[in-house]
């Protein structure tokens, strides 16, 4: 199967990282597509939770926002937002937090707050939302983002949510027991943290992608794991299910009622 886009490859690779018994806190956008693709393919029992309070939801179309009616209609139950953050996220009930972001650094810290200085920003981004506490309260974190020199940067102007910290040692130094980012899935490859330094290192390269292309789209010298494998291309079934849900989604969100 070669007829797929880098974004499709990214979503499919991210979906593959999820297991049937995961309890997943889903960010909007690419994470939501990956989580629902997993649910509709190899992980039908995966538990998806959105910060709007919907527990164990099974949307038929991808939500445009974190609180679409579709999420509530198809959930096992819906709780208030304070309860979601207190009992479910902080309560330690979530195995995987799935995040995206505007900028990332080599230790998988994320910035979604500002470009430039905080008080006089060049670009004001939306802010952290649930991410700061998702990043430390979930068992582990998956991140999915398209790579570019502007998004994969050597130094973040602002740390909105912590990955492995500015030096890779912050989580351990602070006594945080959760794992932090264990996987970063891009449109080019998959990174995992180096067991020692925690720097995100390429472990798998998507079909047709070169190391040069990865470096061109990364703002720091890319490190590779000792063993780097080739990401299997999307299967026909993966692509079909993904395109189906995206077509349903486009149709559902297109028209004003």
């Amino acid at each position, binding site marked *: 199967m070669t007829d797929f886009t880098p974004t499709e490859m990214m979503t499919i690779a991210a979906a593959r990282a999820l297991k049937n018994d995961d309890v997943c806190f889903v960010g909007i956008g690419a994470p939501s597509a990956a989580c629902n693709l997993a649910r509709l393919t190899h992980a039908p029992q995966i538990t998806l939770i959105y910060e709007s309070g919907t527990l164990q939801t099974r949307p038929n179309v991808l939500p445009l926002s974190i609180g679409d*009616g579709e999420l509530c209609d198809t959930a096992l139950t819906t709780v*208030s*937002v304070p309860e979601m953050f207190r009992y479910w996220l902080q309560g330690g009930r979530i195995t995987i937090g799935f995040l995206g972001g505007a900028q990332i650094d080599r230790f998988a810290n994320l910035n979604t707050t500002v470009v430039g200085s905080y008080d006089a920003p060049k670009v*004001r981004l939306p*802010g*952290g939302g649930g991410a700061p506490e998702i990043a430390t309260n979930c068992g582990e974190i998956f991140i999915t983002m398209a790579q570019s020199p502007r998004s994969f940067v050597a130094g973040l102007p602002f740390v909105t949510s912590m990955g492995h910290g500015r030096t890779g040692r912050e989580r351990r130094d602070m006594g945080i027991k959760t794992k932090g980012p264990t996987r970063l899935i891009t449109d080019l490859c998959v990174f995992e943290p180096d067991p020692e330094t925690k720097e995100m290192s390429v472990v798998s390269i998507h079909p047709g992608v070169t190391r040069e292309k990865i470096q061109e789209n990364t703002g720091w010298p890319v490190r590779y794991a000792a063993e780097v494998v080739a990401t299997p291309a999307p299967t026909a079934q993966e692509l079909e299910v993904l395109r189906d849900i995206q077509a349903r989604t486009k149709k559902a*969100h297109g028209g004003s009622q």
Partner: protein
Amino acid sequence: MARFMTLHDAVAACIRDGDTVAMEGFTHLIPYAAGHEVIRQGRKGLTLYRMTPDLIYDQLIGMGCADKLVFSWGGNPGVGSLHRLRDAVENGWPHRLQIEEHSHAAMANAYEAGAANLPFAMFRGYLGVDLPKVNPNIKRVTCPFTGEELAAVPAIRPDVGVIHALRADRDGNVLLEGITGVQKETVLASKRSIVTVEEVVDDFGPLNRNAVVLPSWTVTAIAVVPGGAHPSYAQGYYKRDNAFYIAWDEIARDRGSFLAWMKENVLEKGPEAFAAHGRPSA
């Protein structure tokens, strides 16, 4: 006990220039009609609380009603930026906007603490991030038993809480169902409250498992405004107008087109205009 009033009178009675105001609704049940009424009545100097400012605060900020915004995620969900919010923060238009920024966990806990009449909220959060460096309202508190440090933020206790609900009964009890967000907490944490509703019913009838009921004596004013949450949605009444959220990106990108839209659709209209978006009559 809650009083039934017109939306005009409810806003006139409850919201004053300079008040702290929380208009809540987490994607679902955002009180747009009430926000438009505040704009029409020309309120100034408001401190606005809201987890996700959404288009409703883009409109209030762009029309110059707000001096300060307390928030945790300021985007157009699934679409992109809130251009009026960005223009205020980046360029000071129509005037400089002070911001106090939190995470969702902080604000959700702060509303919960407000409803519980506590002076502050504590939670496991803000670890390894830069927000505490720019927000002096993020502190730490130490567990007196374990010595562990937790994040602390002040409770949210607004002058006025504004929400949109599904129904009120004739006694003024209010029903929410579906994604209920922080709306119950917003009403309970506020000194005064305005609730707009889709309709008034004799009896709430069979209710969903997560229904939330606010007794009449917790609410100041109720205004019946069918469609009053448009372009957000009211579960069982009408769907989210995703197309409008997408269209807003173009409308709000430019100051002129924003002002023209506000004139035509807010300043020259009244709450009854929302009825076109409500549930079609049987």
